[in-house]
């Protein structure tokens, strides 16, 4: 059938469907775009502003968008709606050879990154942020991707790490390298404390319990003022030094000792390499763990818990180990966060954070470490790009706050990306051991775990 036939024969129904979509959109937009409640400051509190133009624009966009969707993206009628074949990019990322080459290339790039001409402070900060999320993603991937345990409160361990670092360094004067393992240990301990009672639970229950646990930690941090500083948080956390050389202008500072001209960038570059080192460490440990009996047991757990038990695997301990090790990396990342910011407050550890990390893992692909890197770049970098929406002020006037739109678009992007690739960027899995040749396992075979 030629395109012409098709369009002419389905033109009217298409318009009809678009009109229906527009009517629905009208209802959706009426109480949001169409009518705004504003405080008048008067006795009766509120009055309404009607924004018919905005409403009209919204509905118009839906009408046009719906037609465009049918013309360009919609699966053609009658076509089999099979699971989409992975794109060539995703296939490439999934293959062993490509992963082997891309990995070192990425690492090489990450190492020279701070010295590239365009790497100013802002870009480096963004790099640090992205690498932090990559590290968190790898940590959570153990729990969600390998062991198949859905954790919606991962940020709790990030918080435990950050506050452990802050409190230990403020009260006991411990240095960074002393605090780091302790923070990881404390986070792992919390992982076990939380995990022990709840890991028997069915998957979705586990999700909601971990979410509740994350909220509990946040509320406690917010209200235990004598210990955590409440909503003001803890400030003046000692900054990490370069093997005893502080990054300041003093006599015995880093710059003076090395006979460099003092620059505030030194500290940023140091922090950049610090998080890079931590992330690389995380990478190697998690990659290694996956090939060990424990890692295979995690994956087996995701595939079939009952079969695991029939083979003598202590599933509770196995889950706990996944939970604790995942938490530990969260704790490491948290203590880096505290060291970098020199300030922690409960606000940094809300549910949005957990959702972002989980989205990075799921979008990256449940068992692909490379996938996590790309999805972290897309998610964190993408959100950062949205920060640059200031120019929209020109269109919408000065009251307009682009940061709201940023999260709005973030939510939208989460939906669209999952619709686009429900199994993530790299959905295949690499066997951990092989006899003759290493073939990737296609997504359709892989069980998703009930947890």
């Amino acid at each position, binding site marked *: 059938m030629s395109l012409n036939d098709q369009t002419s024969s389905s033109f009217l129904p298409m318009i009809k469907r678009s009109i229906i979509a527009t009517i629905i959109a009208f209802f959706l937009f009426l109480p949001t775009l169409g009518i705004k409640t504003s405080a008048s400051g008067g006795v009766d509190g509120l009055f309404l502003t009607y924004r018919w133009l905005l409403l009209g624009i919204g509905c118009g966009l839906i009408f046009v968008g719906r037609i465009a969707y049918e013309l360009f993206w919609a699966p053609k009628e009658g076509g089999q709606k099979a699971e989409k074949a992975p794109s060539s990019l995703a296939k490439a990322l999934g293959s062993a050879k490509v992963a082997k080459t891309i990995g070192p290339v990425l690492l090489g790039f990450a190492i020279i990154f701070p010295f590239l001409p365009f790497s100013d402070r802002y870009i480096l900060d963004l790099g640090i942020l992205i690498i932090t999320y990559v590290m968190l993603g790898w940590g959570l991937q153990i729990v969600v991707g390998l062991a198949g345990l859905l954790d919606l409160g991962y940020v709790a361990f990030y918080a435990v790490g950050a506050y452990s670092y802050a409190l230990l360094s403020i009260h006991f004067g411990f240095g960074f390298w002393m605090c780091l393992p302790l923070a990881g240990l404390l986070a792992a301990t919390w992982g076990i404390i939380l995990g022990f009672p709840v890991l028997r639970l069915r998957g979705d229950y586990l999700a909601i319990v971990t979410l509740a646990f994350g909220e509990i930690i946040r509320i406690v941090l917010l209200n235990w003022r004598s210990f955590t500083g409440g909503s003001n948080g803890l400030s003046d956390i000692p900054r990490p030094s370069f093997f005893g050389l502080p990054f300041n202008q003093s006599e015995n500072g880093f710059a003076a000792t090395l006979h460099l001209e003092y620059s505030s960038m030194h500290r940023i570059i140091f922090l950049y390499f610090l998080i890079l080192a931590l992330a690389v460490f995380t990478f190697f*440990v998690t990659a*290694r*763990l996956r090939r*060990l*009996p*424990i890692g*295979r*047991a995690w*994956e*087996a757990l995701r*595939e*079939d818990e*009952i*079969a*695991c*038990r*029939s*083979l*003598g*695997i*202590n*599933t509770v301990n196995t889950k706990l*180990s996944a939970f604790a090790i995942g938490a530990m990396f969260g704790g490491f990342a948290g203590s880096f966060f505290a060291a970098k910011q020199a300030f922690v407050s409960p606000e940094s550890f809300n549910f949005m954070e957990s959702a972002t990390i989980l989205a990075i893992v799921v979008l990256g692909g449940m068992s692909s470490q490379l996938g996590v890197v790309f999805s972290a770049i897309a998610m964190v970098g993408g959100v950062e790009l949205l920060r640059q929406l200031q120019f929209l002020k020109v269109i919408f006037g000065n009251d307009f706050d682009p940061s709201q739109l940023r999260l709005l678009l973030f939510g939208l992007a989460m939906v669209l990306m999952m619709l686009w690739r429900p199994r993530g960027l790299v959905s295949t*899995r690499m*066997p*951990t*051991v*092989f*006899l*003759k*040749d*290493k*073939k990737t*396992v*296609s997504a359709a*075979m*892989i*069980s998703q775990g009930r947890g």
Partner: protein
Amino acid sequence: MSQPLLSVNQLTMRFGGLTAVDAVSFDVHRNHITAVIGPNGAGKTTAFNCITGFYKPTDGQIVLRHKDDNEFKLEEMEDFRISQHAKVARTFQNIRLFGGMTVLENLMIAQHNHLMKASAYTIGGIFNTPSYQRAQEAAKQKALAWMDRVGITDRADDPAAALPYGAQRKLEIARAMCTDPVLLCLDEPAAGLNPKESEELNALLRSIRDTNDVGILLIEHDMSVVMEISDHIIVLDYGRKISDGTATEVRNDPAVIKAYLGVVEE
């Protein structure tokens, strides 16, 4: 005859008002194939689940004896400990493989506890100590041996879910055997097999019985398998044991005929 490997005594399992297994007693001997047969819903799988710890029996004792006279009270043990310590392995009526993992990986996971120790609970594994490397290589060889034995070596690096049905059944048996059991419980291993595969299965089970020093407890509907290879047959009906003996004895037992064919009228 020597002490039985497994003694089930007055085993009872109730689900609410339903008594799925009702005061059933029987023995399983080492180097014997003991078959449990009975119509659908007779309580065979339930009895298996009690023996392997997936259900806690309402009543009764299940005792397993090792060669060194160690005794295990299975009704008091958790499922994974039964496999780990008492050395009872099982397969499932609805195959339960790790579908997204390769055949080789499936067989490696079966050796988990052994490999965990060898990896010094992961710590030695991280540093890839020589002793861990040796253990890992040995585990691989053992997996390979079992793949050869059941005849799926050419599929070693394929995901288990991609195997044809018959090969999956074989893999499940190989996986159970990789745990080094003294008692192997097979829940309808011939279900869905064609006659040729069924023949191969018979040969495999006989060879396991004769060379691996295990007792085999087998649930089976396929009478050609049961009658041919069983040393001993137990018949369940509505949760009760209605017959117990050799193939010939059971075949001629009126109670069995009645259970399978209904009341014979004439």
